[in-house]
């Protein structure tokens, strides 16, 4: 029996999912070991072997692939504990990285500070070289200018070096020379150049992304070296793959060359899993949401593809590599309720976090949080939170809410907590609206997929606000990202700047650039063990109307590229522009220009069958745990409603709203306007009764299509 394993290392927990060829699934959560997360990685594998009553060595030898998502790079950026990094750049441009084009995000807040630059000014060195806007050498690069810089780098014990020269997207010869010389003369130091990280126009985006890559580079490389050694030590013979920010996977070698591709490694798997679950229900588009302790993440899947964007940043550090387009807003179980000076109730974005956490945790929290409200509203069971591991103190939460909020608002405790619930739901709904509408999509046409945590208590109301008819809480929601990792394909993104009006494009050159990227991609994928027949190509042109400043990435057909069929490309562009921005300039026959060409190369991976049936419907009454008073938002009253044990096999059952379904890892609130179908794999499909008056049925045929 062969296994695939997904391992998602987060701040608190390391999630592991193991799936056999036949779909036999083991799900496990173990504590993370932040000092050296590879320890938690190996421990977790050991524990899974025990759970399966298998000898560890035997278990290891039966694993053919481990897919791993890591927050090593993310944490280095969030805590600013990356490598001591130097930047070498063109004379005259020493400060672009720190200036960030002169933005202050909070315009009316004079105490708001700029970010700490990843490379301090004294480690930003300049050389007197220059390439012109046309790509011609204006001032020749001389290696000897690097000598004093190398000396300084050594004196300062710099651990990582990045190079970014002006207009290198047009002509990278200077960067190539510099990187070669530095690698030769700075042994043991991580060296990277912008043409290796992001060879595209826009200096600030490029220098920032390159600096991020250098800043996290040595840490990421060390982490993987260490992990691979540990896996070698325990004689793991399978393949290790790493989750990237773009939702695909790669081998560790590729990551070590450009570590910035893992900056969003963890959350990137959720939309991938979302795409899988929505396909099961016959949907091509879905929104995946993940409500954790401090934040709420939302991402889009369109036509079964996760939406990527190049406009991302972390901790205000700009990263222009294609990453899954995930918006994060400050709304989580720990979001605190407060009253502003105008007497209005607000929720978040500040969070009580896990420590001290909400008042009901009794860990010293004194500010009312969302979880306190959820508890008082009856959605959470004080004796069964995290399966009973953490007892919640409802009385204490009520007292605090009364004194801190309710009395000041002149409302009852119940009115106040219902208000907290409504406000945070509205905040999350606006966040979801922004990610969809901003990109020109109507959220009503999307399936809403909820990963783990507190999200499934709030989804009925969020969906109602957005007029989304149905949401799904997948069977593996508690380890949703780990599961998503096993559903990703090998994915490599290539980019070349190609600034030209379409009328002036030289067909031969245009195809040559594409073919270069294609060759590189094919070689990498073959090296990663992909068969040629499993390789897919997705070309994208970043283009705009002449005179516009912001380009629109347009995915095009490979055949149109090969045949240089530009008319067809233009047609699609007009349509896409109209969809996103409400108008096109087709009638005006406005000329278009090309900025960048991109090629995404995908190596299709075999998908695990982790949809083992959970058995037929049990008698619902058997799963009925209790009746409990809970808040019904549609009626604005507390009402006694049934609470079901969601960990019992319930396949095929229909649970009428209002009801609460409790699992060890999560609770689902099905409000008055909804019913819930438990599908045969144990996922909860919650649908609006008025949209599906005859109930909702999963079509068998569709499942087979997706699974096989």
């Amino acid at each position, binding site marked *: 029996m062969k296994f695939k394993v997904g391992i998602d290392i987060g701040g608190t927990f390391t999630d592991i999912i193991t799936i056999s060829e036949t779909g036999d699934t083991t799900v496990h959560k173990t504590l993370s070991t932040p000092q050296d997360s590879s320890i938690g990685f190996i421990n977790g594998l050991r524990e899974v072997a025990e759970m399966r009553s298998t000898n560890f060595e035997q278990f290891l030898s039966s694993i053919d692939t481990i897919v791993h998502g890591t927050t090593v790079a993310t944490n280095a950026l969030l805590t600013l504990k990356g490598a001591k990094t130097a930047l070498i750049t063109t004379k005259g441009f*020493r400060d672009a990285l720190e200036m960030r084009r002169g933005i202050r995000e909070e315009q*009316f807040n004079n105490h708001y500070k700029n970010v700490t630059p990843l490379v301090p000014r004294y480690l930003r060195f300049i050389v007197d070289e220059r390439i012109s806007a046309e790509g011609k050498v204006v001032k020749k690069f001389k290696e000897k200018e690097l000598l004093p810089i190398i000396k300084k780098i050594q004196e300062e014990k710099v651990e990582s070096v990045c190079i970014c020269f002006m207009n290198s997207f047009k002509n990278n010869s200077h960067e190539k020379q510099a990187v070669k010389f530095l690698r030769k003369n700075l042994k043991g130091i991580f060296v990277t150049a912008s043409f290796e990280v992001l060879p595209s*126009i826009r200096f600030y985006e490029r220098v920032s992304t390159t600096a991020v890559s250098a800043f996290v580079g040595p840490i990421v490389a060390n982490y993987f070296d260490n992990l691979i050694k540990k896996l070698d030590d325990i004689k793991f013979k399978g393949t290790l793959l790493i989750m990237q920010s773009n939702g695909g996977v790669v081998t560790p070698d590729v990551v070590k060359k450009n570590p910035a591709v893992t900056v969003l490694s963890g959350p990137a798997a959720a939309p991938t899993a979302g795409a899988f679950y929505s396909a099961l229900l016959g949907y091509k588009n879905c929104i995946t949401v993940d409500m954790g302790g401090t934040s709420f993440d939302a991402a889009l899947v369109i036509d079964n593809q996760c939406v990527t964007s190049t406009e991302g940043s972390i901790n205000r550090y700009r990263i222009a590599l294609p990453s899954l387009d995930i918006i994060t807003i400050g709304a989580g179980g720990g979001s605190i309720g407060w009253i502003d000076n105008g007497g209005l109730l607000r929720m978040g974005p500040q969070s009580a976090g896990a420590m001290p956490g909400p008042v009901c945790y009794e860990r010293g929290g004194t500010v009312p949080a969302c979880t306190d409200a959820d508890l008082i509203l009856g959605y959470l069971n004080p004796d069964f939170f995290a399966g009973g591991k953490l007892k919640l103190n409802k009385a204490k939460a009520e007292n605090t809410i009364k004194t801190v909020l309710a009395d000041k608002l002149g409302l009852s405790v119940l009115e106040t907590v219902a208000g907290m619930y409504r406000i945070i739901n509205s905040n999350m709904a606006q966040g979801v609206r922004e990610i969809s509408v901003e990109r020109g999509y109507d959220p009503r046409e999307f399936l809403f997929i909820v990963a783990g945590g507190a999200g499934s208590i709030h989804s009925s109301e969020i969906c109602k606000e957005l007029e989304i008819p149905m949401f799904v809480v997948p069977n593996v929601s508690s380890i949703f990202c780990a599961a998503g990792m096993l559903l990703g394909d090998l994915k490599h993104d290539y980019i070349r700047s190609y600034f030209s009006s379409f009328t002036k494009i030289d067909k031969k050159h245009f195809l040559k650039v594409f073919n270069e990227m294609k060759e590189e991609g094919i070689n990498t994928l073959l090296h990663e063990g992909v068969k040629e027949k499993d390789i897919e190509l997705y070309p994208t042109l970043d283009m705009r109307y002449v005179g516009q*400043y*912001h380009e629109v990435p347009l995915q095009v057909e490979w055949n149109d590229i090969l045949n240089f069929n530009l008319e067809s490309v233009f047609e699609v562009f007009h349509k896409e522009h109209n969809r996103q921005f409400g108008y096109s300039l087709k009638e005006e026959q406005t000329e278009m220009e090309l900025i960048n060409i991109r090629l995404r190369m995908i190596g299709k991976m075999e998908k695990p069958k982790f949809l083992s049936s959970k058995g037929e419907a049990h008698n619902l009454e058997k799963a009925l745990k209790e009746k409990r008073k809970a808040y019904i938002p549609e009626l604005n009253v507390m009402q006694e409603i049934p609470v079901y044990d969601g960990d019992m096999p319930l396949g095929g059952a229909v649970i009428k709203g209002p009801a609460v379904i409790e699992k060890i890892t999560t609770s689902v609130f099905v409000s008055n306007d909804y019913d819930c179908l438990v599908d045969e794999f144990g996922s909860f499909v919650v649908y609006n009764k008025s949209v599906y008056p005859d109930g909702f049925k999963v079509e068998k045929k569709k499942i087979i299509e997706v699974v096989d």
Partner: protein
Amino acid sequence: MKIDKILVSIFQRAFKSITDEMSISLTKTTRSPILCEAKDFVTGLYDAKGQMLEQTENLPILSFSLGPVCRVILEQYGSDIYPGDVIIHNDVFSMGNQNNDVAIFKPTFHNNVLVGWSAAKGHQADIGGAVQGGYNPNATEVWQEAIRIPAVKLYEKGKLRKDVWNLIFANIRLQMVQEDIKAQIGACTLGERRLEAFVAKYGLEIFESHKQALFDSTEKMMRAEIKAIPNGVYTGGSMVYFDGKHKGSKFPIRTKITVENDNITFDFSKSSPQTKGFVNGIYTSTCSAITLTFLQMVNPNIPHNEGMIKPLKYIVPEGTILNASYPAATTFGNHLCPQIADSIFKALGPAVPERITAGWNHLLCSLFTGNHPRTGKKYVDICFLGLKGGSGALKGDDGYDHIGMIDASGGVLDQDYEMYEQQTPHQIIQHEYLCDSGGAGEWRGGLGTETKILLKGGDTTMVVFGDGDVEPNYGLFGGKGSMLNKIELKYKNGKKLIPMSKDMIHGIPDNTLYYQVAGGGGGYGNPKKRDKEKVLWDVKNEVVSKKVAQKIYGVKK
């Protein structure tokens, strides 16, 4: 009607989400870099009476004139407003703030009743008049600056009035402006659709009552902030130099601020009479300047709606430099904001020393126009990257480096260097922080910058406008001022030219070097008290020289 307090919170967030969405749409669809890169625009929602529901203020100086214009429109059209109407406006003598800042308004209806407006105003790349780009330092009357557009319908009941459209755009040089106005109409349509759906969802009665409750709550917040300022009458002043006509001329700005419990009045009556040139403010640009300055002194989380501005009283008599009479030239008016801000900070300094900043760098700016040999097309480009200096320090924090004038407060972005070199024929030689440009102090002023650009393409026209080249930005409480702004042209033949602060230079030849210094912000508190580690860190990073460290900060290594 009973107010659902929770719904009031939800209203606030929903309005903000609408104006943000309009703003994103504009960023992505406009063509002029002034709009899509520098974000020199604002989007807003107003109720049926023209009261502000919410705004997204990328560039705050434009922002607080939309409400007044909306009220002008209501008065002008009365009941003659229909679904599908689109109204355009720029006229500074009917509450516009600057000729180039063109506003689009679209009414929103619910069951055939007018319930509100969506609006978008942006700085257009051209607005007719004598000089491309709109900044005409020789202007003495409005017609030399721009085409005047009092409120006029571009669309009526959904139908384009092609004749009106043609009339307006026959007077504007660049085709691009038409496309940008289309983008503004698009953004307003988004706002209209969402406001319409919002009112439909809650019903008109709930909408009206809860909107009012939101205003009341915000007003309460603002009044609490005012109440925290000790009662009194405070005065401050600053100086505007050179009207573009008379060398050496100067014009005082004088403010008298009266704080009485939770009311505050800004009285600028004693300021200089209006100038003969284009260095004149207009009522709404001055009120915007006052508002955005005061907003920097209060809780930044106050929602931006009518309740926020209600407690603020403005007295700016007509005929003064801050509210010029018809038909004065006024294009420079937005840029009097730095002086207005200075006078307010100086006035309130003794009352609330912990809330004010030292002097911000004043704007000194150039705008290039010419032909791009590679594309064969005309370009207009405001040199944003060169003009942005530092902000003043305040108690507890250094100023912000390279943030730019206070009227934008970091909302205007530099052009990307590589995009700039594609879009214009010019080559950037240097754009870096300038050592010792931040005014010394216990808290240091934000850093200014040094910019060198090799002007290419030949026959370039440069318009210069601004200030800050006579009097340095002031320090506070023992902090030092910063250095002056400067622009200089170095011709290939070795000749140098320092333009005046309002000037226009024609026919600049190929390979002329443009040099600009944007000064830093003023320092706050005695520099000798500055944390030694911070001084040494600044020296290590070469933003403070060893000499200044030793002489002014008294720090030796």
